[in-house]
């Protein structure tokens, strides 16, 4: 690592410990992160906005708290990057779209308040596929993010900026959002830990909606323990989100090391049929690791899960078509004038949305239309029930399930850009979790031709505890070379 970074500890928990004890100042930590961002951002394009001044001011506030003997929070001084679809008061929030150009949210998302209250220092907003629609971050209106492991490849998506920022060691923590795999898939492709919580565990208030019944905010970190620490900070009931679960959440961090002895682990065989050999090998390897640690490992077939993708591409666009209606040029963001309000709406949306967003709005509008609703949206909702039931049956026999996160390692930029269906298949193994509202985490496990391969651990609703214990065991058995932070190979690539 470069100069400044050498003086500060790596990792979120180590950083927080050092800042809390006064060993290192938060200011110094933030300076180091900002310096590293300055060094690599040109080549990677992880960020849409870097909030250097605000970060240093926030770090100084943490240092002041430490100096005054006040509790600076469990994430004291830890730099964190926020996906640019999380609202930040007074800081541009674009959702990767031209249509929100110039809009400054007047409020902070609940998760932003949570991480700031925990002492974390927000350093910027990370790049994403426009409105989180995509699996490569190529759909950003502001250009693609590059994978730190290979600048010619995508970081995955839609939370590609957050995944790449953690993988490149620009920040120890980041937040993303996961509607069909948008945290886990880029985590897998970038060699970091990425987790989607149980639907309703983390408040969606302030997350710019893509598909409301599927969206969840989730943590990125280099290690399972760091990801768990961030989850513990953002989880919990929020009265501002009606779908927020009103249950007492038991923090996962204290029991990460409890092991998997006697845990029943199912390997989803349906996910192994079409995944690339390296991804299948990673799953087998992780299953062996769990077995050796005392888990009871068996294969399980859940055929209903393979119906998930097609149901998802009806439900998610349907909700998106409604959620994105408000970008009409009337109140905020882009406006392209026209002779009357209808034409102004149309021109604004034509100019402001990119092709993938338009494709999904049209798809969603169509499936909700009178006469088609039942055949498409209604049917998709029934399939969704089948997926949930398939999981439900499996979880009567297993505590957690494992499978590949992504069918492939990181692919080359442009490889799937003109083939939406091929791109959609990237999320084949992550989507069923969202449809069921369950948690899942991707853990880096192995390398395939120099690129990281993640393994997914899935659990039933509110099964985060067992899931994180299993993930901890998988991580310990993984190839340490397969995970970030790494020295990006992209440093000298011009944007």
């Amino acid at each position, binding site marked *: 690592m470069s100069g400044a970074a050498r003086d500060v500890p790596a990792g979120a928990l180590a950083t927080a410990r050092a800042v809390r004890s006064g060993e290192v100042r938060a200011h110094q930590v933030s300076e180091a992160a900002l310096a590293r961002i300055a060094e690599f951002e040109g080549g990677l394009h992880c960020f849409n906005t870097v909030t250097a001044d605000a970060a240093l001011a926030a770090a100084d506030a943490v240092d002041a708290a430490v100096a005054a003997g006040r509790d600076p929070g469990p994430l004291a001084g830890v730099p964190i990057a926020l996906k640019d*679809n*999380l*609202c930040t008061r007074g800081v541009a*929030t674009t*959702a990767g779209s031209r249509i*929100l150009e110039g*809009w400054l*949210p*007047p*409020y902070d*998302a609940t998760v932003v308040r949570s991480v700031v209250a925990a002492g974390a220092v927000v350093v910027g907003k990370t790049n994403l596929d426009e409105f989180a629609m995509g699996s490569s971050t190529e759909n950003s209106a502001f250009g693609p993010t590059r994978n730190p492991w290979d600048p010619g490849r995508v970081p995955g998506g839609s939370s590609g900026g957050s995944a790449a920022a953690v993988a490149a060691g620009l920040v120890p923590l980041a937040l993303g959002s996961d509607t069909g795999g948008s945290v886990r898939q880029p985590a897998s492709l970038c060699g970091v830990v990425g987790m989607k919580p149980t639907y309703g565990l983390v408040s*969606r*208030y*302030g*997350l*710019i*909606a893509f*598909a*409301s*019944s599927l969206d969840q905010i989730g943590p990125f970190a280099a290690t399972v323990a760091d990801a768990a620490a961030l989850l513990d900070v953002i989880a919990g009931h929020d*009265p*501002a*989100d*009606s*779908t927020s679960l009103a249950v007492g959440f038991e923090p996962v961090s204290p029991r990460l090391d409890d092991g998997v002895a006697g845990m029943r682990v199912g390997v989803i065989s349906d996910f192994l049929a079409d995944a690339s050999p390296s991804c299948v090998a990673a799953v087998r390897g992780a299953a062996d690791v769990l077995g050796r640690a005392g888990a009871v490992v068996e294969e399980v077939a859940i055929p209903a899960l393979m119906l998930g993708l097609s149901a998802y591409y009806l439900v998610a666009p*349907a*909700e998106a*078509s*409604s959620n994105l*209606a*408000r970008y*009409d040029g*009337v*109140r*905020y963001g882009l406006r392209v004038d026209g002779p*009357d*309000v*209808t034409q102004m*709406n149309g021109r604004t949306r034509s100019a402001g949305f990119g092709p993938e967003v338009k494709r999904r709005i049209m798809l969603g*509008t169509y499936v*909700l*239309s*009178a006469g088609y*609703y039942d055949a498409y*949206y209604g049917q998709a909702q029934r399939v969704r029930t089948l997926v949930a039931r398939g999981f439900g049956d499996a979880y009567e026999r297993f505590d957690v399930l494992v499978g590949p996160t992504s069918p492939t390692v990181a692919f080359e930029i442009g490889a799937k850009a003109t083939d939406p269906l091929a791109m959609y298949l990237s999320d084949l193994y992550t989507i069923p979790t969202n449809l069921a509202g369950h948690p899942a985490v991707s853990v880096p496990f192995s390398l395939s031709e120099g690129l990281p391969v993640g393994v997914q651990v899935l659990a039933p609703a509110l099964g985060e505890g067992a899931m994180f214990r299993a993930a901890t065991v998988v991580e310990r058995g993984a190839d340490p070379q397969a995970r970030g932070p790494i020295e990006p190979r992209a440093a000298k690539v011009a944007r």
Partner: protein
Amino acid sequence: MTADSSPGAGWEIVVGLEVHCELSTATKLFCSCPNAFGAEPNTNVCPVCLGLPGSLPVLNARAVEFAIAIGSALGSSVEASVFHRKNYFYPDMPKDYQISQYDAPINVGGRVELADGSVVGIVRAHIEEDTGKTTHVGGGGRIHDADYSLVDYNRAGVPLVEIVSEPDIRSAEQARSYVNELRAILVATGASDGRMEEGSLRVDANISVRRAGDAEYGTRCEVKNLNSLRSLGRAVDYEAARQIAVLESGGRVVQETRHWNEDEGLTSPLRSKEEAYDYRYFTEPDLVPLAPPAAEIAAVAAGLGPLPAARRHRVADLVAADGSPAPVDQLTTVVGLGLDDLVRGAADHGADPRLALARAANEAANRPDDARALSPVAFAALVKLESAGKLSATQSKTVLAAMLEGGGEPAEIAARLGFETLGDAATEAAIDAVLAAHPVEWARYEQGDAKIAQFLLGEVMRATRGRANGKAVAASLEARRRN
């Protein structure tokens, strides 16, 4: 309609009404912004009711209570319900969809009994959010030819209950009576202030006509922009006449939405069935299903006071004890203004219920706030003075006005004003003088012209400045004629 030769003879008007009622909650339906009329534009707004990216709705529990109260008052079945999104683009709708209820509304079924005893069935009464308010500047005030438009989002997100009636209404008069009754019910539940002029109650009318005796309904048109009971009545009559004229000239009524133009007194097409929006309803994923516990529903229903129909019946029963029915319009007025307790209280204290009802409906109703504060004992005392002939009707009204103005005992006020009914001798003297001054009219009266009696009575009252007892004067005139 009656089967005479007037235009529309042989046709029946069929009307169903959709009434949007703004709920009297302190805050909006999905956020904590004030629900207040008349504030500076775009001051009662927040990220939620402006539909800013990332904001989410949280259902107002008080609005749900009001909806349950309305359902209970209408005799609806209060059921587990679901919110839906109604999707269409309009600049006054911050999210370009409206959160409403679709196939699973909170209140299903019900009925409204009108003052004349007729009954209008209720299909449903569901919860939804209001839109903002657009003002189109220039180009005739319609959106597509305006120079520019201004939007005020203060109203966006105000809680509404939409009450949909069955097509049970058969005339403009009945339509007005239904809305009046509904308004009284809504005010009685506390759910609404019932102010049509502030838009608290807004009415859309589905109007069709059919040949008298036909079993099938005709093709209907939905008429919007009915801002008063007067507009409603005029629009029903106009639209029915228009449809009858179309049908009688061999044409077909086209199903469409029409706009009522109050100034011109006519409806004009807004959009046809083909142009109708496809609202693409689907379950609102940002809200959870609403399933009020049975105990909550029961508690709200138990907390409802007596409703207008029941209150009318109670007063009507008191009045009708004298053998003839109570005037419906007076009953409606006193119950509508909440003066029925005053009438019943006066009756409890010995006042004649019929006279108490008349004074409450005709005089006290001019100052309803003061009248509701009036002591039933004092009001009873006034009515009794008048019944006993100690105050003339004119004097009684003047004393009542003074009581409403500043309170006080009616006997004292009457004494202060010098109101004592003239003695018999003075009354007879006054009559003598009036008859002497109007010999021609007296002659006509003597020959049996009953109408002239009112003139003579008026002249006597005028001459005595209202102090004569009208009944006694009338009796004296009659007695003189017979002699």
